[in-house]
């Protein structure tokens, strides 16, 4: 794996956040180092650390400059670069139902044309691999998952949508994202899940976490409609299973 043995670089993000950057690419080995470091530091519960935000290739440490400082945090990071925590030995695996039909998939035909595949082949490719949640970000509950099968890598939309329907399953380049709330967005919408990825009436409201594994399972429009009603009524809960990391 490229660059995984290298030491990370430290970048200031003001006086209350520090970036620990492991590389400049979307790469599973780099992302694993980010998430391992996040778990190791989280288990230490360092004084003054407000939050640890893992992203594709770097970890942002939000801190309180009244209680700690950059120098102490850099020392803590350097002492925990190769720590394997108990929590990094297993992770959560989810099967996410997704409808790839009709209004749920407004960009499916266009993606198929761009990729030189049939719509059925796009669905088979997207629902035929295990994705890893590389990061949670942007807005509440949004998972950024990779890695996309090479045949399915399409660019972002040239004209972003003003309104992307909630729970849309989208793709662009290496990543697939579920729109956990309704926002503007520039990714191609190829499906929609009936499972809320952010639901304040559920505990916890956010479904996924960095490091989780996800496989999409194609469902029919009829199944989608029934499941959407069940999840909206909170009569159904999606369960995960533990797998070895």
């Amino acid at each position, binding site marked *: 794996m490229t660059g995984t043995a290298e030491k990370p670089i430290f*970048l*200031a*993000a*003001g*006086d*209350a*956040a520090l*970036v620990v*950057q492991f590389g*400049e*690419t*979307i790469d599973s080995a780099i992302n694993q180092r980010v998430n391992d470091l*996040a778990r190791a530091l989280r288990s230490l519960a360092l004084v003054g650390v*407000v*939050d*640890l*935000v*893992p*992203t*594709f*290739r*770097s*970890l*942002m440490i*939000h801190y309180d*400059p*009244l209680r700690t*400082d*950059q*120098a102490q945090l850099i020392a803590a990071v350097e002492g925990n670069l190769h720590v394997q925590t108990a929590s990094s030995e297993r992770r959560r695996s989810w099967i996410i139902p997704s409808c790839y039909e009709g209004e749920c998939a407004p960009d499916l035909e266009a993606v198929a044309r761009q990729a030189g595949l049939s719509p059925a082949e796009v669905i088979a490719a997207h629902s035929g691999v295990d994705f890893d949640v590389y*990061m*949670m*970000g*942007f*807005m*509440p*509950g*949004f998972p*950024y998952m990779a890695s996309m099968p090479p045949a399915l890598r399409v660019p972002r939309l040239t004209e972003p949508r003003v309104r992307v329907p909630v729970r849309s399953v989208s793709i662009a380049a290496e990543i697939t994202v579920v729109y*956990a*709330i309704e*926002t503007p967005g520039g990714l191609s919408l190829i499906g929609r899940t009936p499972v809320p990825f*952010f639901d*304040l009436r559920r505990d916890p*409201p*956010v479904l996924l*976490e*960095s490091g989780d594994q996800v496989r999409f399972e194609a469902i029919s429009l009829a199944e989608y409609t029934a499941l959407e009603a069940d999840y909206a009524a909170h009569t159904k809960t999606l369960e995960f299973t533990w797998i070895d990391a």
Partner: protein
Amino acid sequence: MDGLRVISAGFHPTIQDYGRPSVQHLGIPAAGAMDVPSLRLANRLVGNPENTAAIEIRLVGPTLEVLCDSVRVALAGSCTTMTLLGDDGGPLPAHQSVRLSRGQKLRVPPLSDSAGAYLAVEGGFDLPPVYGSPATFVRAGIGGFEGRALVDGDVLPVVTDAVDRRPEVMLATPSFLAAEGPIRIVLGPQDDFFTAASIDRFFSSEFVVGAAVDRMGMRLEGPAFEHSRGHDIISDGIALGAIQVPGNGQPIILLADHQTTGGYPKVGTVISSDVHRLGRLRPGQSVRFERISAADGERQARAAETDLQTIFRQITNAGPQLDLGRLQDSNLISGVVLAGA
């Protein structure tokens, strides 16, 4: 439980405390007060813990009616004088606590000197926390009053629906409201995405706060940045006060409701002890920036906290004349001007 009825909401008031900065790893923006020192002061004046949620006022204040037995309130962050409506009304200065009784109506006019201010209520509002905080994040419907900005007709439940009579307290205009000089910036994390000349120009130019200011970000009008390595990065974390520069080169400072991650390069970050000053800037005001190291930024944070503690120790008794509830109850006054103190 009854509390305060919103007769007229003003412009986009929300319930805010320190926010929820510890769940950004779930994609949840921190939200919270745009001007934390003023929130803390407002709470101090009514005897609350400093992190108690208050009404964050933006530009134009609300008019409120007391529906419960009595409340104690204070406005901080703006020197705008409030008005107690009605025959027994009169002006009520900012930075001073006041006890109000059932039926009394309080008006916070358009703010004269700041984009924001805080109206704290003794005991706070009885609103459920989400991920540990009642701060409102409107975009995802999280926290506050029904996950949204306050509108006419809302009734905000208060925790303490009858407050004791005691000497009211006040603070002369707090010095942190008058902070001048450039806003201080730590370069990075992606200052290497910009030409050195455009970074120099940023620190030597005056910028104007654009009309598009909200709780998420502030657009600056001035010389554009030149990108040297494109304007897309692999999405990474965003800190409060980060200066994001999209393809057009015009910087946007990300504020309390900022997204947790983003794919535009960030040339620098406003230091934590200057972020509150941005929360007070109004569209059209000019602003300058100065470079500082992260270590100096940390020192400034500690110095600012020491200063704030000194300011809080200057809170003094305001005298009995501001116990409007008693004055009204005893029918001693009618239209007496209660300003001054």
